[in-house]
């Protein structure tokens, strides 16, 4: 870590941001009325309804804290990766996990700074009488707002600023998962990642395209229709680096008979959910189809499968895989892990897949209830209720499955099986014997850690022979003899 204190500060600020966000539910008037996108004037003018008071201010404070915390952590990540790589750790030997963090950190620095500025402007609109996002002649509850907010503001300005953050944010959430999925699949398949350099390139390409397509959230928001066409092209383009990754994941595990640890299962689940959720992307990228699908449950299905579910499967892969490094060498229970995986996979698909259908039937998102809707809307929405019942039950199953994980966590922290120094036969540096728990006695060896080769150096195993070479192993002769260059 280049800046360990700043990193710790970033972590604890994030925890504080969460506490503030949770607290906003318990203040007079309730939690923020305007949802996570906080579109003004709903978020800017107090008269727009309950949830417009302290709740919204706490929401603003929480997100601002989170933006500051994320920027700090990102700067630490970037500087650490650029400046503190050990000898031999060239850029093309850097694990894809680290490439994922690196790209996500680059995006974070860009996106969160814009968000923080937007939050400040919104705060000024709320409390300093400015009108960045409030147009002249705005009437709320029959009261003209012009006196309190003079000027010529536009709600669309907020949409641009917010989505300039909001879209990179989904890549910030998924890129680390993509990177570690590549590495974990290769580890348990005992094969090199197919197209390693291409995977580095696609990670960066996703990052670059990720900041060029925020307008696809605004196809029907009042954007110039020509702009929608431009944003549609950049959005369709991101399907290509994403597809390249899927092809690499399939090719990496192709006919390897992998070892199905819980971490491997979650990594495969990541691939499945990423494919299922991702493929509705090219549908939603077409502005003409957004004319029907925008803000329906179809969109909710899309981004929950890919960003929420695949993203969380990435987190679980990481937790099951690296748990021994933070638990004094104990492993999570594999038996409970398998239960956790299958229940979560079942819950994820049964909760979010049917939302495609209710969305196609026309159900809008953000509806507090679907019964007692006046007018012809009631008839239209009534048809979605049976599927919504299924979704609700599945969501409870999905939530309950996480109790298995919490139990596993609590139990394994104290009573988990003690792992070997390198339980997964991994090749990357975090499993270096000198870094392993309980290796304090071996620290006499002060020779610096040197990287000798790219990660995932798995050799086709012959019985009784070492079948992999970690990045730190200096066994070069073995290396040359056994591996033909790619």
């Amino acid at each position, binding site marked *: 870590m280049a800046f360990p204190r700043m990193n710790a500060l970033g972590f604890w600020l994030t925890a504080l941001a969460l506490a503030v966000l949770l607290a906003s539910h318990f203040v007079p008037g309730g939690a923020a009325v305007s949802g996570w996108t906080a579109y003004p004037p709903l978020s800017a003018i107090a008269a727009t309804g309950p949830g417009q008071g302290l709740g919204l201010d706490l929401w603003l404070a929480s997100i601002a804290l989170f933006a500051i915390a994320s920027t700090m952590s990102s700067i630490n990540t970037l500087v650490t990766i650029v400046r503190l790589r050990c000898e031999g750790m060239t850029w093309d030997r850097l694990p894809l996990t680290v490439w994922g963090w690196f790209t996500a950190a680059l995006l974070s620095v860009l996106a969160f700074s814009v968000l923080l500025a937007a939050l400040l402007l919104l705060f000024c609109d709320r409390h300093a009488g400015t009108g960045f996002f409030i147009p002249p002649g705005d009437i709320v509850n029959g009261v003209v707002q012009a006196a309190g907010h003079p000027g010529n503001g536009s709600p669309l300005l907020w949409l641009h600023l917010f989505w300039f953050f909001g879209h990179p944010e989904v890549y910030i959430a998924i890129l680390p998962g993509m990177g570690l999925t590549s590495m974990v699949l290769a580890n348990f398949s005992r094969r090199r990642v197919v197209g390693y350099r291409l995977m580095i390139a696609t990670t960066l390409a996703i990052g670059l395209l990720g900041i060029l397509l925020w307008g696809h959230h605004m196809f*029907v928001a009042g954007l110039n229709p020509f702009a929608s066409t431009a944003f549609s092209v950049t959005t369709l383009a991101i399907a290509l680096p994403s597809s390249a990754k899927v092809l690499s994941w399939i090719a990496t595990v192709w006919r390897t008979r992998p070892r199905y640890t819980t971490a491997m299962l979650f990594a495969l689940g990541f691939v499945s959910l990423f494919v299922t959720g991702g493929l509705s992307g090219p549908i939603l990228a077409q502005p003409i189809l957004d004319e029907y699908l925008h803000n329906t449950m179809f969109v909710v299905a899309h981004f929950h499968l890919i960003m929420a579910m695949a993203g969380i499967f990435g987190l679980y892969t990481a937790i099951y895989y690296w748990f021994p490094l933070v638990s004094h060498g104990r492993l999570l229970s594999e038996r409970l892990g398998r239960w956790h995986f299958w229940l979560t996979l079942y819950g994820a698909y049964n909760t979010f897949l049917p939302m495609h259908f209710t969305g196609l039937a*026309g159900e809008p998102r953000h509806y507090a209830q679907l019964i007692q809707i006046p007018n012809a809307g009631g008839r239209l929405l009534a048809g979605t209720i049976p599927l919504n019942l299924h979704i609700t039950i599945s969501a409870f199953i999905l939530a309950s499955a996480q109790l298995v994980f919490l139990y596993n966590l609590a139990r394994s922290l104290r009573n988990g099986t003690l792992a070997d120094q390198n339980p997964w036969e991994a090749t990357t540096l975090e499993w270096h014997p000198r870094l392993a728990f309980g290796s304090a006695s071996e620290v006499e060896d002060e020779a610096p850690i040197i990287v000798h080769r790219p990660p995932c150096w798995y050799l086709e195993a012959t019985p009784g022979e070492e079948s992999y070479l970690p990045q730190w192993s200096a066994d070069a002769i073995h290396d040359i003899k056994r591996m033909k260059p790619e």
Partner: protein
Amino acid sequence: MSLLPLIASLLPTDASAHGPALDHQLQLSLWITLGLAVLAHLLLIVGLVGRRTQARSSLWAIEYLPLTLLIILFATLGIRAERLWALTRYTGASHEAMQMEATGLQFAWYFRYTGPDATFGITRPQLASAAEGNPLGIDAHDSHGADDLVTTELVIPVDREIDLTLRAQDVIHGFAVPELRLKQNAVPGETTHIHFTATKTGTFAILCTQLCGLGHYRMSANLRVLPVDEFQRWLTQREQAAHP
């Protein structure tokens, strides 16, 4: 069994002129992506079940060839979609289109007809008062405004192009008619135009599709599409009632 009607059956009635082409593009996209999802999962499962091999094909076969095919596929889809988008959005309504206006406010839609002079009157925010029967703030001193008609349901003639002006008074609302494949936000301070032609008579739902506050879910109205003569009768009747 053709699977195409399966997806079509999920969608509500299609009652607009641009709708069938949109539905076709939607179904085509859904089938292509469904096919790709199934293919990817099949490859994954076959690869996991197969015996371990050492064989490794070139990156060209694994990556570049499939990616080229995907570029062609997505480019074709994209070009088709952009052409449809251009048809509906790049140009405004024709001169013969009927002028109407929809205004969203928490939590209702109001619709305005021009009256015989075919021109909307000026609105002033400080005059807007639902209690005084003038929710849109039409200026009574403006001669264009005097004959304007304001309703809480949108009644239109079938097979006639409508040029709909969208406005919002307080916060952003989303004007959506699923059965006419229409959606466009109404943004305070902006005037947005969409144009469409209803091809079927009937009563359809107008929903709000942009979170606008606690009552968002119940902010709906009816769109009634009437045969032309019936529409004329309705309009005359309403205008006489409003301006005797």
